[in-house]
């Protein structure tokens, strides 16, 4: 016991270190997941309607997804659009991905992480 007098403090420090090291990796993998989900035909399938950098054969129904951070500084707005855009625009073609459970909350958040890199 006496050999490690500051054990709790050390643990906290270790945890913080690990956290700091993990955080960027976590964000990275969320962006990669988000891109995968956005391009997956069975999931977000965003390319069906939107042009997105890095995606082949985009559709033309929606606007190109670019400069997202400048256009939507508040990520909650993006989450809301993906969750159910019919709330804002009843005529929209955009499927209500959250409301109709095409995507989970976690998946929507990952896609938003990816969109914010565009």
């Amino acid at each position, binding site marked *: 016991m006496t050999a490690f007098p500051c054990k709790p403090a050390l643990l906290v420090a270790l945890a913080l270190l690990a956290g700091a090291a993990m955080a960027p990796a976590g964000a990275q993998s969320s962006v990669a997941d988000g891109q995968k989900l956005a391009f997956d035909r069975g999931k977000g399938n965003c390319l069906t309607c939107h042009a997105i950098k890095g995606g082949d054969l985009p*559709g033309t*129904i929606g606007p190109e997804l670019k400069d997202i951070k400048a256009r939507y500084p508040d990520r909650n707005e993006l989450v809301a659009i993906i969750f159910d855009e019919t709330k804002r625009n009843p005529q929209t*073609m955009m499927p209500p991905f959250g409301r109709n459970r095409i995507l989970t909350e976690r998946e929507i958040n990952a896609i938003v992480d990816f969109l914010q890199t565009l």
Partner: protein
Amino acid sequence: MKQRATILFGSAFVALAALAFAATRVVAADKVDPVADAKAFQNFFFRKFPNVKHEDFVNGPYSMNEDMKRQWQEKEEFPPYEFALDAGKEMFSTPFKNGKTYADCFPNGGIGIRQNYPYFDTKEGKVVTLELALNRCREANGEAPYSYVKDEMASLTAYMAFTSRGKPMDIKIPDDPRALAAFENGKRYFYTRRGQMNFSCASCHVQSPGERIRAETLAPALGILNAMPIYRSEWSGMGTTSRRFVTCNSQTRAVPLEPQSDEYRDVEYFLSYVANGLPISGPGARP
């Protein structure tokens, strides 16, 4: 107390306003006017695509731009529906076991009549499509009915459409409240959103014709049935109007109805009626 009275009065006012609104809506909904609907429907597309010749709308996505049109013209030189057409012609002229033929079931021996289907049968009180009439003809002559979605049914309707090419769609709505109700029901189905994707038929084919979903160009709703049946590359084969409805529903993750269910028959009635005047172009070929 005073506050409560205000709230009560306020809600009564809102309720009254809602009632008044509902009442005017009911009056509007009571007046089914297919003639005005068809005119508005056609004008919508004519204005949206001022450069497309009216009779070209029956060529679906191929009417939407010059590139697509060239693709269609090339395709028509060796049309992929030709096998079905030849098979249909032979089936049509081959007698049933009782010696009768399809020609005995239809006006004008079944030749050049595609533009009159579907029609409203005032005896039955329902819409009768060409596919339905063909299977009824078979059953009346002791033959087993065909699948509604492809193969033999598509071959037979391909031949019947071919003999009617160029004839303007000519759907009648008899003076019968049930016919108007069928039209209205088809229209409602067409414009109602459904399924996990929350699309109506109109989302794609009225709001977005000419746009692409991935590489595929969406067809305009106007004239979409004039080209039936179609050879669809995506299906690697022929499909009927029934097949088109079923796959549209399942692709948008909605629950498809049974082929030739009342609602599908009503949709076909509505969509065909609003295309009145446009030529029959079937059988068609689509990507």
